């Protein structure tokens, strides 16, 4: 069993200050990108993180990797709280924490060749003066399914899918235990997406890597994840094992999300009931009171606008933050 926790976050928040004025900048408001999120990822496990754009998925991923410093909360990795460490202290730990970006066009340096790109993490960690360096690059090119003759090519000579393979090879270079995949396939064509998903699947199996897989594509998340977390306006709405989340979603938001995904089958589509949510995602600068989802919820009732639901286990590791479930009511102290 993969019970050992590799990375855990506790009550993580990230607020971005909004300032006004050119010289003496005053803080006028806060954007609550991530608001009190806790979860743990086990060794070799994939946690899918879904939600609409602007809900804080990417910010959360960057906070985990300390690319953003969290406003409060803890990121526990290897027994250390990364939020307390200086950049210098973090550097050796970063080997274990890598990132695959969404856009394979912006995330590769156009002046680097493929082998420069893949070797960069090793150069940063001073591993390039060994004979193993070139060997490792060749090995990585092979692992991600590129051909050796491509090593001296520049990014513009590669297609989108091949570039994403380069990004993956770079993330693998230091043999990390944990990779944040931030929408790794959403810039790719449908016929290429499956290639990259299969590659990520293989790598997990081969090297026991844990992923935080950030995506808005619920069908892809179901395919790749062991557990899934649903995020809305900076908060987690529901966290559960893949099968229980997709087979019996408990939170109204999850139910609406799943019903909104069109299924490529006209016969199935004719029979489906789609839940159409009203309105749009509110601004994280001025989030709604109580449950942040209540203005759009189709199951809203009296306490929702005033009481903030807590993410709570309602049995079998299925966590939900909705006032329709007694466990989610805040504990009175």
């Amino acid at each position, binding site marked *: 069993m993969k019970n050992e926790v590799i990375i855990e976050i506790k009550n993580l928040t990230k607020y971005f200050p909004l300032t006004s004025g050119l010289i003496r900048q005053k803080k006028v408001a806060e954007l609550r990108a991530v608001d009190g999120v806790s979860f743990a990822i086990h060794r070799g496990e994939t946690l899918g993180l879904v939600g609409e754009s602007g809900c804080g998925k990417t910010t959360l991923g960057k906070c985990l990797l300390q690319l953003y410093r969290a406003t409060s909360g803890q990121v526990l990795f290897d027994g250390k709280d990364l939020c307390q460490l200086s950049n210098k202290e973090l550097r050796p730990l970063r080997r274990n924490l890598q990132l695959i970006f969404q856009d394979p066009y912006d995330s590769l340096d156009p002046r680097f060749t493929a082998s420069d790109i893949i070797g960069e993490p090793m150069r940063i960690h001073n591993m390039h003066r060994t004979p193993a360096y070139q060997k490792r690059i060749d090995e990585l090119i092979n692992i991600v399914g590129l051909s050796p003759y491509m090593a001296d090519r520049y990014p513009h000579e590669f297609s989108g899918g091949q570039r994403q393979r380069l990004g993956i090879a770079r993330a693998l270079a230091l043999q990390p235990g944990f990779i944040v995949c931030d929408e790794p396939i959403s810039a790719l064509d449908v016929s290429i997406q499956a*290639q990259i998903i299969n590659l990520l699947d293989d790598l997990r199996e081969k090297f026991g890597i844990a992923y935080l897989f950030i995506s808005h594509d619920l069908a892809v998340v179901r395919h790749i994840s062991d557990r899934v977390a649903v995020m809305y306006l900076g908060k987690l709405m529901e966290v559960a094992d893949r099968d229980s989340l997709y087979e019996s979603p408990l939170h109204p938001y999850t139910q609406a999300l799943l019903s909104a995904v069109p299924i490529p089958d006209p016969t199935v589509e004719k029979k489906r009931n789609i839940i159409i949510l009203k309105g749009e995602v509110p601004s994280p600068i001025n989030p709604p009171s109580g449950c942040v989802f209540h203005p759009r919820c189709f199951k809203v009732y009296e306490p929702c606008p005033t009481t903030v639901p807590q993410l709570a286990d309602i049995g079998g590791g299925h966590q939900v933050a909705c006032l329709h479930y007694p466990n989610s009511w805040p504990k009175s102290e």
Partner: protein
Amino acid sequence: MSDKPLLEVRDLSTYFYTQDGIVKAVDGVSYAVDRGETIALVGESGCGKTVSALSILRLIPEPPGKIASGEILFDGIDILTLPKDRMLDIRGDRIAMIFQEPLTALNPVLTIGLQITEALERHRNMHGAVALEEAIRLLKIVGIPQPDQRVKDYPHQFSGGMRQRAMIALAISCEPELIIADEPTTVVDVTIQAQLLELIRGITEKLNTALILITHNLGIVARYAHRVYVMYAGHIIEHGSSQDIYHHPCHPYTRGLLASVPRLDEPRKTRLQPIEGQPPDLIQLPPGCAFGPRCPHVIDACRQAVPPMTEVSPGHYAACRLAVPDRKQS
């Protein structure tokens, strides 16, 4: 069936003449839309679906682009031979377009209201307060809250979903007979996507408007299209009713595409089945069938000549040598 289709595209070829060579973005494409019908053009980026739709409106930038050959008949009018000013009468009035990215499609320095009244003035001879009143009514139809206030806003003051609603209001302002929606929901979230598509469906049903839906999302196509055209590398490789395409796909590309996407309603597969390889370079298309190099069933004949469209069952066509006419198997 008996009536003539509203729009008929025959053997359309649109090429782009670039320094690197001729890009055959659309190469011998034919399709038809009936009144009130929704058809979908499906395919991956670069397959020519947008160019083939822009050609209908003659919005291809020339140069480098050029409609090299073909015929486009809209309600009996040959669009390609029409003088420019007559084209302006049709564009926005009888054929409207919903673009993928409303932020670039809307004019940033004009208010939403002005952009809608502009169309009303041009095509409906409405002016001043009457046109403004109509613009507010349209914004209300597409579900923009407080339309009398928002009509004075600029596009940047709208959220992404709102902007797309405003685009829809603009598109339906003159009650067109045909709407072309080019990836109308690719830039918005899934819950907003559901809202917008239901809105478009409601409007097209009410006004009996024909809709050409351009998308790469096979789920959206299944939900909304009556008939489907699958495009690959500038060609239509298969078309038929959505039942035909989804339940009896004949072309290996269509089959591959359907097999490669994970589905929420089916048990989870342990492994996805990707289509191997990359889409071809449109400047140097492989000889014969463009899908040949990626096709698992490729035979020698495929490499020699482009396979002709064959009817595999009534109304269901595929351009593949291995697609033999047969009874539909269940």
